[in-house]
């Protein structure tokens, strides 16, 4: 996967929720210091860290500050606590070992070296097995995730409470995008034979309210087969939505549409 495709996952990775194939893909990029994903994830870490401020404000006990300072001073690890060390006296010459002791020590070192080498080999094999197991688990998890997403999309599509909406393309020859609005489960988006999206770009779904600015609902890209199937949460009652629109935006999405509408549906 390219960095542009992984950009939508940066915050989830920083939050620690990402699993399976997606996590493995991103970590492979992060292993390279010059990969753009490294900076993207670093920036996402800042965004996610800000959720700490959602914790209810609480005053620490007054004594805590003193406890911390006592703890570092107790280690004698402060500038004020530094005491010049007395210069060590030269050690007395050590008596020579007899020859038999040197031979015994050399034999012991050989045996120890051999044992360590054997242990290292076994550890390598064990690590290899663990790696293979981890990969198999990740592949299984990725398939499971896809299956779960398909099930959710199907549930929304088939629910009698869902409102089906057809988003018509603005360019001739392009396929239709289908949306199904469910008041609780969210909006399911499906499409087939979609053209590939340019590198560094993404498609973004918007709810256009009867009054006010468009609201971002989801960012997505067709898969390798040109298919789209996803469910995104709905933040707006259906009767307040005037239209649904899809635009082509930079990877990661935009706060407001920056390009002309590519697909659109008016709500009655």
């Amino acid at each position, binding site marked *: 996967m390219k960095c542009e495709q992984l950009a*939508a996952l940066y*915050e*989830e990775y920083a*939050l*620690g*929720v*990402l*699993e399976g194939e997606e996590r493995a893909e991103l970590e492979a990029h992060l292993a390279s210091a010059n990969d753009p994903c*490294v900076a993207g994830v*670093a*920036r*996402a*870490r*800042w*965004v*996610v*860290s*800000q*959720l*700490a*401020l*959602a*914790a*209810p*404000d*609480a*005053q*620490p*006990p007054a004594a*805590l*500050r003193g*406890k*911390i*300072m006592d*703890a*570092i001073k107790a280690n004698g*690890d*402060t*500038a*004020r606590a530094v005491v010049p060390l007395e210069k060590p006296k030269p050690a007395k010459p050590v008596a020579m070992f007899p020859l038999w002791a040197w031979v015994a020590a050399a034999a012991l070192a050989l045996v120890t070296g051999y044992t360590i080498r054997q242990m290292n080999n076994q550890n390598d094999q064990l690590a290899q097995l663990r790696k293979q197991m981890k990969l198999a688990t990740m592949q299984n*998890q990725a398939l499971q*995730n896809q299956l*779960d*997403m398909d099930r*959710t*999309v199907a*549930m929304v599509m088939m629910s009698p409470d869902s409102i089906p909406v057809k988003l018509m393309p603005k360019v001739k020859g392009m396929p239709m995008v289908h949306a199904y609005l469910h008041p609780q489960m*969210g909006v399911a988006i499906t499409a087939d034979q979609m053209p590939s999206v340019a590198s560094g770009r993404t498609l973004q779904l918007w709810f256009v309210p009867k009054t006010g600015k468009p609201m*971002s*609902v*989801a*960012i997505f890209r067709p898969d390798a087969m040109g298919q789209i199937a*996803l*469910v*995104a*949460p709905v*933040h707006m009652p259906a009767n307040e939505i005037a239209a649904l629109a899809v635009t082509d935006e930079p990877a*990661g*999405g935009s*706060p407001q549409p920056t390009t002309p509408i590519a697909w659109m549906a008016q709500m009655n």
Partner: protein
Amino acid sequence: MLLAVVQPWPEGNQPTDAALMERILQRDSSALEALYDRYGRPVYSLALRIAQHPSSAEEIVQDVFLQLWRSADRFQISRGPLEPWLFTMARNRALDFLRLKREKQRRREDSDSDILPSAVVRPDPEGDIDRSRRAEKIRALLASLPEAQRRAIELAFFEGLSHSEIAAATGEALGTIKSWIRGGLLRLRESLEEDGS
């Protein structure tokens, strides 16, 4: 006299986090006190929210600041500001505490529970808004999300659950949980970027 060596910071001329970290490297404990005065409260609030017990939160805060003291040489201001670094370290410590408490072996066996947080990049360090305003904004944003979506994000951040664990805990489909969290984080990013904060 002791009072003669006390040097309060001039009003409006607070030392930067980077300057305080430099002084910590020189083993100046008063710099750690200054950083505690600056960040002790939000770090304690976070630890208390996760650990749910005051004495545990105290232990976590103490651990975080001692780690800051011991590992000051591993913090590089060029790699990002101190605040998110501290928050990330506090969250990791508190979640480790939770996991220990629940006696659960978690998938993070090879992750960073014992190491320091990775690099953090803040988009616009100059455009800072004060922390309490940012906190209000983030709380308002979470409050504006549907209850179930907010709960999913809180389970991820404050309880350290993964997508599938949240799906299991809430009974929602995994795909729904992913969409909720992705949508919520996108709104958080957009909201923070709007202010250039």
